[in-house]
């Protein structure tokens, strides 16, 4: 029914999405519709400038299929590091006294490695149980530093530099501190992304102390999954 001649007369008149559908109808149609000439006709309607003078560096078919609509979801490439490659140096101070100081391997921070007490929210956070638990008087100012080392390149970067827990969220039993990440100059225009760190505590009723049983670290400004966090850490200014 539809001979080659008719198809060749009709295809130049089709919209790109219709032409693409034709490529899946049957082998004869696929053969004919593949000819970039018809895709040039499609592109001529949308971007006439691409059909003037010399052709663009990619085929008209690829041009149309790639750009015909705004790209919305971009999938992340697999990160170059894994938690296995990382070690975190975490230090907490209260008014000059060292409260907690540990080298934590990446996998120990993986979400789900321990079961927090009920009521803790499920966003992507690097979490760590604090053992042994430590207590801090409510009145004291607590500060934290976190450095991270990577085994693949043997370099170190700063995650949090001397941030204080200024913000206490009593309803969720969290004390929060943050610091802005220092990103490598290889990634210009990236700024304003914070590392957040929370102390998870139970209020010790009588003596005004808080008992810290866990730590959570997250980068919710930009990263909300393990893959995204790993990419973000990869982008730090490693030295």
């Amino acid at each position, binding site marked *: *029914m*539809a*001979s080659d*001649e*008719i198809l060749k*007369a*009709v295809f130049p*008149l*089709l*919209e790109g*999405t*219709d032409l*693409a*559908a*034709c*490529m*899946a*109808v*049957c*082998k004869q*149609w696929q053969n004919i519709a593949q000819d970039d000439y018809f895709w040039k006709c499609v592109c001529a309607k949308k971007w006439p400038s691409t059909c003037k003078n010399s052709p663009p560096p990619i085929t008209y078919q690829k041009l149309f*299929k790639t750009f015909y609509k705004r790209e919305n979801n971009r999938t992340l490439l697999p990160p170059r590091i894994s938690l296995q490659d990382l070690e975190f140096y975490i230090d907490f101070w209260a008014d000059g006294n060292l409260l907690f100081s540990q080298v934590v391997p990446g996998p120990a921070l993986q979400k789900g490695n321990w079961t927090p007490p009920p009521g803790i929210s499920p966003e992507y956070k690097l979490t760590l149980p604090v053992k042994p638990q430590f207590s801090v008087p409510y009145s004291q100012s607590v500060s934290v530093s976190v450095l991270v080392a990577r085994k693949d390149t043997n370099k170190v970067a700063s995650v949090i530099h001397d941030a204080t827990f200024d913000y206490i969220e009593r309803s969720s039993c969290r004390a929060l501190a943050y610091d802005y990440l220092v990103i490598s100059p290889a990634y210009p225009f990236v700024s304003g992304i914070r590392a957040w760190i929370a102390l998870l505590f139970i209020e010790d009723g009588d003596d005004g102390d808080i008992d810290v049983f866990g730590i959570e670290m997250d980068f919710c400004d930009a990263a909300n999954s393990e893959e995204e966090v790993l990419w973000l850490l990869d982008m730090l200014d490693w030295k």
Partner: protein
Amino acid sequence: MTSSKTIVLRSSDGATFEVDEAVALHSLMIKHRIETGGADSTTIDVPEVTGNTLSKVIEYCKKHVEAPNSDDLKSFDTDFVKVDQAVLCHLAKASYYMNIKGLLDLSSKTIADMFKGKTVEQIRETFHIKNDFTPEEEEELRKENSWNLFV
């Protein structure tokens, strides 16, 4: 000023149609045949076209040759292509072989409009096309076309 000379057109199934030469010349293929065929070419064979289709093609040519500036030419054209898909394809094919640009453009555009927004399955149904891809090939095509909503 119409010429009194007539031409006989013979379809693939032997049907003959006598038309004014001016009307026949609307087909560039026939024009070429007449110009190169010598003085005796009064019967032209059109083996690519059946009688049914040829009669419709002649109807088109007649209207366009005899009343090219009439106000109702546009509505004539619109109504002319209100035919079923099979007839439309025959018209397109005939206009291609007989080199009648106006009719080719008209029928191609009408056919092109039938594709708008159709899925692959719907296209196959409309044009009675058999799917000759293997299931594996179809899967491959589906993946390749995942950018496209209509596949």
